[in-house]
Structure formats: C-alpha cells, structure tokens
C-alpha cells in the first residue's frame, strides 16, 4: 500500500501511522456537552466506499494528513495536509 504525502509524494505505507477517521479534526468546544464529546471520541461510521482518514507521516516529514480512500476498492484518491483540511 502506498499513500500520497502532500509534501513527500508517494510513499510506502510503513512510513505512516494510522489514526482514524477525519472526524477527529472537528473537535467540539469545551462546553459542547457529554453527548457531543462522546460522539466525537467514540462513534464512527463504517462506510463501504469512500472514506477520509487521518495518517501521520511519522517516519517521514511529520505531517498529519487526511487521506481519501475507498474501503471497497482500496483506491487512494488523494491526500491533503490536516492543517489545511476543511472538514
């Protein structure tokens, strides 16, 4: 498996650390309430098809990136820096 780092280009999957769905970017406010926080922390969709998830180019440039990929075909269709990702 290879992932397209927006800074380094296509790299082997073993350079990356997998975090989880990109929903982690939408951090609730401190007073958003337990239900919202519970959703943010624990509840995830399990899509058959396109999904966006977070990877850290840990053994590379250190960028956190959002990768768009398809869980059925395994196609990777793009990646952007997390700091620039609009969720």
């Amino acid at each position, binding site marked *: *498996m*290879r992932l397209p780092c927006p800074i380094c280009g*296509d790299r*082997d999957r073993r350079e990356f*650390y997998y*975090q989880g769905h990109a929903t*982690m*970017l939408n*951090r*609730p*406010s*401190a*007073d*958003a309430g*337990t239900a919202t*926080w519970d959703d943010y*922390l624990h509840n995830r969709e399990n899509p058959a098809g396109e999904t966006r998830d*977070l990877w*850290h180019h*840990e053994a590379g440039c*250190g*960028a*956190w990136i959002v990768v768009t990929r398809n869980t059925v075909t*395994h*196609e*990777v269709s793009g990646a952007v*820096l*997390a*700091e620039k990702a609009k969720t």
Partner: protein
Amino acid sequence: MRIAGKGLNPDGAPLSFTFDGKPYAGREGDTLSAALLANGVRLMGRSFKYHRPRGALTAGSEEPNALVTVGADARQDANIRATTQSLYDGLSARSQNAWPSLKHDAMAVNDLAAPFLSAGFYYKTFMWPKAFWERVYEPIIRRAAGLGALSGDAVEEIYEKAFAYCDVLIIGAGPAGIMAALTAAKAGADVILADEDTQMGGRLLAETGEIDGHAGSDWVKRQLEALAQMDNVRLMPRTTVTGVYDQGTFSALEQVSEQNAPLNTPRECFWRITAKRSILCAGALERPIAFPNNDRPGIMLASAVRAYLNRWGVAAGKAVTVFANNDDAHRTAMDLIDAGVRVAGVIDSRSDAKAQGDYPLFKGAQVIATKGRRGLQSITVQDANGTHEIETDCLAMSGGWNPSVHLTCHMNGRPTWSDDILSFVPMDGSIPDMSVAGAARGKFSTLECLEDGIAVATAAVTSLDLKPQKTETPTAEDTPYAIEALWQVEGKGRKWLDFQNDVHVKDVRLAAQENFRSVEHMKRYTTQGMATDQGKNSNVAALAVLADATGRGIPETGTTTFRPPYVPVSIAAMGAGSQGHGFAPERHLTSHTASVDRNAPMIEVGLWYRASYFPKPNETTWLEACNREVNMVRNHVGVCDVSTLGKIDIQGPDAAEFLDFVYCNTFSSLKENRVRYGLMLREDGHVMDDGTTARLGPNHYVMTTTTAAAGQVMKHVDWVSQALRPDLDVRFASVTEQWAQFAVAGPKSRELLNTILDEQIDNDSWPFMACGDVSVAGVQGRLFRISFSGEHAYEIAVPARYGASLFGLLTTQAEAMGGGLYGMEALNVLRIEKGFITHAEIHGRVTAFDIGFDRMVSQKKDCIGNAMSRREGLLDSEREQMVGLKPVEIADKLTAGAHLFVEGADAVSENDQGYVTSVCHSPTLGYDIGLGFLKDGPNRYGERVMLVDHVRDNHVLCEICHPVFIDPEGGLARG
C-alpha cells in the same frame, strides 16, 4: 534415462547426490527431479493422507507430489519441490511421510482403510468420545498425515529483504514476457523482468519449436543478452512474484543460493517491488485427467515429459504412452520419437483425433485402469473396439491447459470461464494497472504469445506517456489449440484430482451430496486445493466435477479464491534481518560503554539500554547493590544517566498558549528560568504522560516526557499543532538526542556540581525548580534543579558529544564524596519511597483524579482532555485511586500485579478492591512498600487490605497509607 546429446546442457559437469542415502549421479543444470528420473527413480514420495506411492507429476513449482527434505540440522529445508530444487554436488535429499522407508511405508495401511477416510472423515469419525479429540485422535492424525518436519534448530543461513521500483514489472519470461520486456524497454521504460525459473524462457526451454528459424532456447538466449545490455532493464531470474498488493506493490521471492552456499551468502531475498504498470506473463499450467488410479509414479503431465526430455535430456520412461483430450499433447509423442524413445501409444478421447506422426493412436479412447504398485507398469485402454492392455512405464497425460490467473485474483478479482479453451481466463481490470499477456490469458500458440507480449506492452508504455517503437513479431508456430472436454473417466478405482491432498472424484461428489455445494465449502470439506500447490493442478477439474455433481455449469460454480503467496514463502525470508541486533534498533546512551565496563547489567527500556545497577565486587545480589545505591543517594550523592527522557524544544509567539492547551495545568504563568511539573491528558480524560517543562525564554520552553512515551508525545504535539490548533504559531523539534543529561541527587549534589561548574551555584542562584544555562568545564550546558528522588537534586545537560566525558567526571567526583553511580533499580526505589508515579501507575486507565491530581486540571481554560475528565464516573470516589501500601508484618514481601481484597473476603474478581502497581524494598524504611490503586483509597488510610497474588501465591496483610513514604513536606528537595 539420460539421452545422449539431448537437453539444453548436454555437456554439463557431473554432480553426485544422494536420495534417501543412496548415491546417484546427475549433471549441472538438473533439477533434483530431472536427476532422479535420469537415474530411473520414479518413486519420490508418499501422499499426505493415504501414503500412496507418488512420483513427480510436473516439472515446475506447481508440483504436488515430489516433496523432499534437503539438508540437515540448521540447514534442513522441508517440503522442497524436487522439481525446482537445483542440483548441486553433494546434495542430500530425503523422502517425507514414509516410515520405515519410501518403498515399505507402514502407514500405507491408511490406503486400505480408505473407505473410512473419505472427505469429512475427521468430522464424522472422531466426534466421540469428545475428550478423545485432543488427547488421542489429533496426535495420531497429525503423526500419520503430513509433510516434512522442521529440524528444530534455528536457521543459521542469511535471508534478505529488499525494495525495488520500476515503471513496468513483467512477471514471467516466456515468449510473451520477453517480447513485452523488449517492447517496454525500447520505449524507455524502466523494466523489471522477473521469472521463477533458474533460467528464463518459460516453455521455450521445454519445447522444440523454432522462433525466427532458431531453436527456442537459442532465441531466448539472444533476447536476454539484448535485454541485459540495456541500462533500464533489470533481469530477476529465480524470482517468483508471490503476491499483488495495493497501489502497484508486489512481493517476490528470490532464490539467491542453494543449501550448499557458504553461510555468509543469502539463501533467499524477499522483494517488495513497486511498479507503475505490471504485465502478467505467467503462462499456463497443464492439468491432469481424473481416471482410475491416475496417481502412480510414472504418470505425469505431458508437458512435464517434454520438459524433462527437451530441457534436461531425460526420458521419463522406456515405453511411453500419452493420454489427452487435445492436439498439444501429441507433441510429446513426436518429441519422444525424435529422441529415439519408444511411444507405445497415444490415447485421445476425441473421436476425430489425428495422428501427427508414426505412433499407435487410439481415437475416442480412454485410460480406464492402471497397474504397478510402486511405479506404472501397464494401462488399460478402452475404445470402440474394446479394451487393450498396454505395457508402459510412463503415461504422459494432458487434460488441457489452465492460464495462470492466480495473481489477477489477489485483489478479489474473479476469473471468467472461456468455452474456447475450457478454462478460466483473467477478467480485465482485476488489478489496477495490470494487464495480462500470452498464455496467461488463453493465447496458447507461440506466435500468439509473442504478438500479445508486444501489443500489451505497447499499450502499457503508451499509458505511461512513453513512445513505443515498432517491434517486429518473430516467426513461430501458430497451431490452433484443439480441445474437447474430458474431466473424468468412469471406472473402478479412485480417480485422483488433488494429488497433494489425496482428494478424488468421489470426495467431491460426496461433498455435493452432503450439501457442501458451494465451491468454498467443498474446498474446506474435502481439503481440495490446499497446501503447497494450492490446487494449481487440480482446481479446475475439481470444479468441473462439482459442477457436474450439482447440475450446474462451471461458470455458475465459480472458483475458490486465490490468495498470496503464489508459492510457499519461507518465514525466514519474510523475517529477514530482524533477528539478533536487527530485531529492533538499540539506543545507546553516551554512558553505555562506561556502564558496561563497570559490569552494570543493561536492561531494555523501550529501545534504550539502561544500567540496572552498578555492582561492587563484594555484592552477590542485585538487591545489595540497589540498597547501597539508594542509601548513597539519601546520604551522600548519586549520579544517573537520564538522557532517555524525551526532550522537546518548543518555540514561537504562541508557545505558552500551546502548552496551556496540551497540558492540563498552566504554563503561561511559569517564570523564565523556572521548571514546572506538568500532566498531559488524552482527549478522553485519562492521563497520557507527565514530566517537567522548563521556560528558557519568553517564547521558548523545553518539555520533558517520560522515556516510555517520548514518541507518543511527539506525535501528539504534532497532532495538536497541525490538526487541532493550526491557529497557534509554534514550532518544535525533539532534542532528546542533542543532550546528554545526568541526574545528580543527594545532600551533596550541589557540592559535587560546584567542582565542575565554571561558576559556583548556591540556593539563591539555583533554588528548587530553577533552570538555566551553565558552563560545565568550559562547555555550554544546562542545569535544572529538579528531583525524582525527593532529595536535593539537579539534572545537568551537555551536548551529547561530551556525554561520556561528563559521565566519567561526575562519577569520579561523586565517588570522592562517598557517592557514586546509581541505576534503574535504585531510581525506582527512590521514586516509590517518594510516591512519584511512572507509567506503572499512569498505565492508560487512570485519570488525574485517580492519582490525586484532579486539582491540576485547570477549570479556567480548555485543554486536551479537560471536557471528558469531568464526565460521569470519572470523579467517583468509588474509583480505584492511588494509595501507598506497607506490610503489617514488616518482614512480609509485597509483589506488583497482586490484587487487593477486604480482609477475609474470597480472593475472587467480584471482591476485587484494587491492585498493586509498584513495589520495592525500601532500605530507608527497612521494609517493603508499594503503590497501588484501591477503591476509595484516600479515605481509607490506616485500614487494612489483603494483598493476594495468585500467580506467585503471595498473601500479605497490608496497611493502607499515603503514597508519599518519606519527607511528605518536601523539605529535602528544597534543601
């Protein structure tokens, strides 16, 4: 029988080898099976389940029968296919699954019991009594069934792993692969041509047909020379592409050397190849016909008989017969006759078959019986005229050819059925950016393969925006593939489908009858298609039988799923380089050599190696050394290398705000040149890590992390900065490796430091929690007045190049003051006595509340973990919270990992009150002490609990106490 002058290497050097201890002669270029056949040895193994005598069925990696063990002890390789094992001088091979000998195998009684051992017999026969399965049945079955055995010795040989990249990966170097490689290379593509065989050329090495008027093997040689001349071509012979993975990555196994190579030479290399395009030119595999007793040694595939003859100059028999349903197999008869071998008859199931040469042809005929216990002696042929018995010691059979579609199925692709060739062909687009050429997609004539290789490669390079040059197609045979379906022959006796797993036609029918009608169910019920050959010879025929038995067509029946690896891959190759020092990086401190020189046992802390303790000559146990080191720190001064703690340099206009966000307590209020303890939570409100952070300037901090969590915290601050708070302007970098840092702890710590600092310090210039730059023997360093022991203590840091030197200096000075070095054991005792936590306590399930730090979680700001740290249940007094423990009887020993129970309660999980995380013997107090977590612990000081350690069988009555055992007011550290 070797035929003089035949084969590709007729003048090969003679080699001697043994099989089951008996010496034989072979020649350079032989495979083991070719050499055995040359010596007239047909019996090469016993079958898996029934221990039936078997010989080589094939001449390639798909071999199901001729599995042998090569070498011995640490160099023993089991389940080696004799058909791919290159012969070398002195090779020693043994047969498998036979006792006492291959000829007289006691377990062959299984064959007589066959009626009771049909498909699914495990499930039916060994159901009762239940308890017998594990103790009786399974061990017996395991002993009886089976393949080769491991030697039990660790592998001494070297294996490698490597990566490679190319524009176009071509898998298989037969006519299609070679033309594809030439076409792609001439267009300027970076090409890898990988082929599993020792020699490239595929079937061209085994056939007599000419290309451009030259022998096929000569043509191959010339093309390979041309390819080898090109800088953009990498030829990888003996390299089997074993798997296809996402985004154009492939695994491949290279056989680098044989078992006789010097031990410093790699045996195999496991490649990970990344290609923009791939072209599968894997060819096709011939399939057997299921007729009664079709498994006797001497019954082989027609293509294998040709290969042994044309490539190795070996006649597989003296009087050969051929049984086929297609024209292709007639070539075998022709080649044998040309070589002077007698062909006793060609049996063709087609009524319109035509003889292509001077041999007896039986049209519309079938082989209905065979004879010969340990090798074929005769066959019985039935045709319109009745039955005929023919004396023959080799029957070459061909049920047609199956394209090698395997790799196209590795990403869930399904092949489609072709009525033209009566087999499966790959579906287009099964693998992104892979195309298939030649016989692998059912183009069976040599000319078709050559043409297809050019066409497919032209398309591939065009898609890479390269300009293909016109490549002329060489001239070659273009015989149509004439085949008529023949899957099974009725008659008395078992008609074997899967030779490797002893599955025959009746087993498949039985599966269907017992409602295992899905092809995947049939596979599991019968074991059809398992083990080393993965059904390469048998799957299609078995499907045809299943289709017939279930009244469905073959396309509806479908295939089982081909998965990686295409051929067996040794574990040693996959784990190459990861043994011994290659297992994990070893992080050495600058004090490493000095510590080892002092006989300190080094223990692994993550990847770091740290000194456990520094034994004195008179000390016989680690505890003696540890107690001495603790007392030394408490009474004099000790020195310990603490460079393993993570250090992160943090700078920027928003550095303070950033720290306030990642730590649950506040750092914006920290004064310059001061250090503060910080607690970091995870977003779910549990403790992630702790450590001290120093403020070196208005916008400049240095954070320390625990050794264990250094990597995790670095990743976390990257995450927070990039993903959650990109609004904050802050930069950071790890400086863990830049600084060698040593703890100097004890009442004489300042006295010691003043012997090496260029400017003297006192309590006013360096009060508790002060920090700043210092000059250490002329070198710019940093000094932090912090304590992990409760004593008056410092940590002093210098650039790592001076680490070894400073460590030596500190050691000398400390020893001159009655102090010295201390290791991890003493460090641990010192911190437990003082009630300081480590990751033994903050193990991932505890909150700030649990460790009594809930007031550190600032209520005035948002920070990571703040919101969730206050959720229901996390502030409950019934939670297990940190306490100290001491034995009521002071001689009693505490053990970590034990659980806590109310005195007198049953020590069962329902009564669990908590657990013990850290224990030590406190030389300061004279008895064992411990830290642990206990329900409502802080309100139970003075009460008693029973410590129960089921693992070590330890029961100790303990008193619950405050977790800080010494100097609770902290006066010592403030000195």
